[in-house]
């Protein structure tokens, strides 16, 4: 099978001596850096750390669910484990995953800027993230928290005697990290574009991040104030959500989901951006219907703000409110469908190769399609009644978040790894990892759809024996999935030293980031580029190459 990978002659090629990694040395040069690329690397290391903590917790959950009884651990331990799994994975991994690593690294380069608009705030947001992470770890070590990541009142305010306050404040702090990242992206995209880089020449990766940033900036503050009120209710006993004092716990649900539903799009939109880049590159074609894909990101961001109450269909909100929110939920499903079909048709008449990032992207398309369509089951009010709060919803959001987002994240990491490090990873084993991940994922989470159909509730430490077979399947699948995640850890680290020299543009991709050296210089561009070519302009790239050949040759 042919490939488009073209590496420089390994006997003569060197990783450029001067690049952002070697520019300065010493720990302090990293801890005080303003360079968006170095901050991206710092993020990458820290979110990987938290991913494996969250992953270990997930492993423990699956082990406990191997048998119907709660025998591996007591029910309250189980409750703490799934709560910490949710908190770590959502707030410390999924929300910052693609934006804070790939977004941070690539957005300035893609738009032809030397850095993000506010480098110091960018660094600050990493420290805030670390502070939030440290507080979460502290809460975990000193006894954990058992409210579920949703912090439902009055459970979280009056009935739980675990570390709700520390965890709440941790999320508050981490939330500001996310606000600052989003703010930085929006300002950068508005004000820092290179000459000639018009809005419709922006890569779809940038569009997706722009849309996600709007959600971060407008949604996260609402979560922040909600958590402040929860903490105040727990400490001094104000009565905003307390039913015994006349407060309304449903108000908490509204405020919480006003952030936490858009948060789903904060997590998935950047992943969609990655997929657009990867599919275009490996089919050597402009993304089919670029404008539609760009605007569908914005549409998701806008509609995403008006569907939050679909998490509350069975909570006694008015039937007519349910009608409205169900309808809006159907509308938000459409832009995702548009994206899927546009990606599929990008392949049409392309010249397709199947390198690792592309395999992950195919995995994304399949799993996200399932995740999205099962979301429609839950957005339809009549069927939501039966399916919500069961393993169906667990399977649904894992298909979107793990099957979608994590696949996209791995796709993006593999795609831009040569750019970030200057080296290639071993292709065969990385393709294997992609396949193993896909198989393990389906084994883990598909049975959970069936469990949910049968009515098995989520967050159960013990369950009726009739559900055991499917749970065993799920746990077995999780062990395969675990291998799929460990493999990249190993060969990517290996490649840092032993990987082949990648050269500037191993994939023959069109983005500005591929036209500079790998790893890039600290200042990205020695002179700000003037953008004359279109976005995804493969013909321009060919002409460039011919030009070089005639000049050099």
């Amino acid at each position: 099978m042919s490939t488009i990978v073209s590496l420089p002659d390994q006997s003569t090629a060197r990783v450029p001596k001067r690049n952002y990694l070697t520019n300065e040395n010493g720990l302090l040069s990293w801890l005080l850096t303003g360079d968006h690329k170095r901050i991206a690397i710092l993020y990458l290391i820290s979110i990987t750390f938290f991913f494996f903590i969250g992953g270990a917790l997930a492993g423990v959950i699956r082990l406990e669910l191997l048998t119907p009884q709660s025998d591996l651990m007591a029910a309250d331990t189980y409750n703490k484990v799934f709560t910490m799994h949710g908190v770590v994975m959502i707030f410390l991994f999924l929300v910052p995953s693609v934006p804070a690593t790939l977004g941070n690294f690539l957005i300035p380069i893609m738009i032809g800027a030397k850095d993000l608009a506010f480098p110091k705030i960018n660094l600050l947001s990493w420290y805030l993230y670390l502070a939030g992470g440290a507080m979460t770890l502290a809460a975990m070590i000193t006894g954990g928290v058992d409210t579920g990541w949703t912090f439902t009142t009055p459970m979280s305010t009056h009935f739980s005697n675990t570390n709700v306050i520390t965890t709440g404040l941790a999320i508050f702090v981490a939330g500001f990290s996310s606000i600052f990242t989003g703010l930085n992206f929006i300002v950068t995209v508005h004000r820092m574009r290179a000459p000639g880089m018009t809005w419709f020449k922006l890569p779809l990766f940038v569009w997706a991040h722009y849309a996600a940033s709007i959600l971060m900036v407008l949604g996260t503050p609402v979560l922040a104030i909600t958590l402040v009120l929860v903490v105040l209710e727990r400490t001094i006993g104000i009565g905003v959500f307390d039913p015994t004092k006349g407060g309304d716990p449903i108000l908490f649900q509204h405020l919480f989901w006003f952030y936490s539903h858009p948060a789903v799009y904060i997590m998935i939109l950047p992943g969609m951006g990655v997929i657009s880049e990867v599919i275009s590159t490996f089919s050597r074609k402009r993304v089919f219907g670029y404008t539609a894909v760009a605007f569908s990101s914005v549409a998701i961001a806008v509609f995403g703000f008006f569907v939050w109450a679909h998490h509350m269909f069975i909570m006694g909100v008015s039937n007519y409110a349910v009608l409205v929110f169900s309808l809006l939920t159907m509308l938000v499903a459409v832009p995702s469908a548009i994206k899927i079909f546009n990606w599929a048709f990008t392949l049409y008449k392309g010249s397709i190769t199947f390198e690792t990032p592309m395999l992950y992207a195919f995995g994304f398309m399949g799993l996200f399609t399932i995740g999205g369509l099962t979301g429609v089951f839950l957005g339809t009010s009549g069927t939501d009644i039966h399916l919500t709060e069961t393993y169906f919803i667990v399977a649904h959001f894992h298909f979107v978040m793990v099957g979608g987002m994590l696949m996209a994240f791995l796709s993006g990491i593999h795609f831009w790894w040569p750019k970030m490090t200057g080296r290639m990873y071993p292709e065969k084993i990385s393709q294997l990892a992609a396949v193993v991940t896909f198989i393990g994922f389906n084994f883990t989470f598909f049975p959970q759809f069936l469990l949910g159909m049968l009515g098995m509730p989520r967050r159960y430490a013990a369950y009726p024996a009739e559900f055991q077979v499917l749970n065993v399947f799920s746990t077995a699948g999780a062990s395969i999935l675990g291998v799929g995640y460990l493999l990249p850890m190993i060969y990517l680290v290996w490649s840092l030293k032993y990987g082949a020299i990648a050269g500037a543009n191993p994939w023959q991709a069109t983005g500005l980031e591929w036209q500079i050296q790998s790893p890039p210089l600290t200042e990205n561009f020695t002179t700000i580029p003037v953008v004359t070519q279109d976005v995804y302009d493969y013909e321009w790239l060919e002409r460039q190459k011919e030009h070089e050949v005639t000049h050099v040759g």
Partner: protein
Amino acid sequence: MDSHAVATTADAHGHEHDHPAYLRHHFVSYEQQTETASFGMWLFLLTEIMFFGGLFTAYLIYRNWYYPAFVAGSHQLSITLGSFNTLLLITSSFTMAMGVWSAETKRHKGLVWSLIATLILGIGFLGIKTVEYKEKWEKHHIPGDTFSVQSFVNPSSDAEAKAAGDKPMGLDMARKTEVYFSLYFAMTGMHALHMIIGIALLCGMLFKAVRGGYMDGNIAFVENFGLYWHFVDIVWIFLFPLLYLISRHQ
């Protein structure tokens, strides 16, 4: 293969130094730098609106539900102190605007004295807020275990309630005043927190201004702080009528 890459070889300091020293390396011009900073500040204020928005939503819902409790609760607030505080804040916004103008026109003394005036007015606001909080503390109007509904079930025992002509309230509705005070403290507390952060920044800015800072045209910080200060002022302009005024007359 590297040969067609655009920027593989260059000197980081190859560019000309014909720009002011405070131009950050990743901006092309000073205009771009200031525009970027002020755009960022406006966006940040937008997040602040969403932050307070959650509280305002809660306020609107509960006021609708527990209107009599909100009326009686607002009678416990001193319009005199509230109005005076409003005056202080509006004046401080004016002095802050004067400060920005002084910085723009490079008037050193003007800037320093404007900042001092803003600082004093801000601290004055917090001082009066403390007096108000203390009164609430003494009357057990702080939500929590010590909260007392005495002033509302038995208004004749309470000077403010008596003066406002409150009628005795059923215990159930009187208990809802705790929701009112919860929101009162959450909203004014969050506002006060913003004031404290503002005053801390103001002190730093004053320190720099006294030593001759902001006279070289690099006044983005002063301008953006001005925006922040006006925003905090505007939040109060909403809080004051909502908490103190609109429920006063049934």
